[in-house]
């Protein structure tokens, strides 16, 4: 892989690391309640495909520790039990603040990059 292309991908990966928690909160806001797989599908629909389970589940756990999401194991008639997640009021507030912050940041960066 050419070095410049790899550098671009690394940069995008770094950007995503900084805002993936907001993207997950937003996906949960859209889905109302979701388990890991449906959450990843929702992220993929919004263009964030290729995110691995090994990234999503620890992140959901951290969001839960921070009180931004809640979860519950649900055992269905068929298949393994699934852990469903949904936003708490604190999570909705964090998402709203994150949206405002992102708009301001992207506006600043657009000005910085495009003059």
């Amino acid at each position, binding site marked *: 892989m050419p070095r410049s292309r790899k550098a671009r991908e690394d940069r995008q990966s770094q950007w995503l690391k900084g805002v993936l928690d907001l993207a997950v909160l937003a996906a949960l806001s859209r889905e109302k309640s979701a*388990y890991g*797989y449906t959450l990843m599908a929702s992220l993929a629909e919004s263009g964030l495909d290729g995110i*691995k*389970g*090994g990234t999503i*589940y*620890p992140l959901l756990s951290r969001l839960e520790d921070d009180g931004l999401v809640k979860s519950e194991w649900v055992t269905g008639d068929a*298949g393994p039990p699934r*852990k469903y997640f949904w936003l708490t009021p604190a999570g909705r507030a964090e998402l709203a603040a994150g949206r405002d912050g992102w708009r301001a940041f992207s506006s600043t960066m657009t000005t910085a990059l495009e003059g």
Partner: protein
Amino acid sequence: MATSRWEYAKSLAEQLRINGVAEPKVREIVAQVEAHTRMTGEDPVEAFGQPVDYAAQWQPLSGRHLLTQFLLGVVLAAGIMGVIKAVSVDRAWADPTPVTFDDLPTFGVFVALLGVLPWTVDLFLSRRRASRLGQSAPGLEWPLRWAAILGIGAAVSGAVWILGEPSDGTLFMAPRWLLLALGLATLPILFLAGPHPGMDSHPRPPGPAGHEPSWKSRMRRTFLNR
């Protein structure tokens, strides 16, 4: 090479336990991996990375946890020695019982078995297994185990030789009942000490919060690694 979901789950559970993750959380993490891979059909290593790396994302092994587990092994070794000494001597319970220089090698063996080997060689081998699932088989384990046992034997012998034997061979005296009592008092460490490398039993599915394994189950896991 595809990875068996079952093998991955066992290996991940072992790594999480080694790192000090509580058993209810281990059950949750493993259940999530199994549910996810069953639904997507993905290879667990492809989706989550090697068990050793994924476990470290949740909680890396800290030096403090490692030292605590080692010291608990040492205390347990001392307790077992106390019980053995107390029940093997032919004295009245109140009589002072000498703990002698000759007891040191046996103590060293217990320390090696309960404290050193699990958190050095077993830890290394476990990490090695859990960092190459789905890849070529790791090398043989028995040469390393034997080398470690011989090395520890040499270290214990060297330490005993360097310390030198006291003139009458006695390290300290204590009433027989006290040795037994102190020894028995260390037995709860079997429950306090966390799981150690090699405990790769598959965790139960997540259940209601606070539903912990029975004492029978914990004893079985402690002694039989299953």
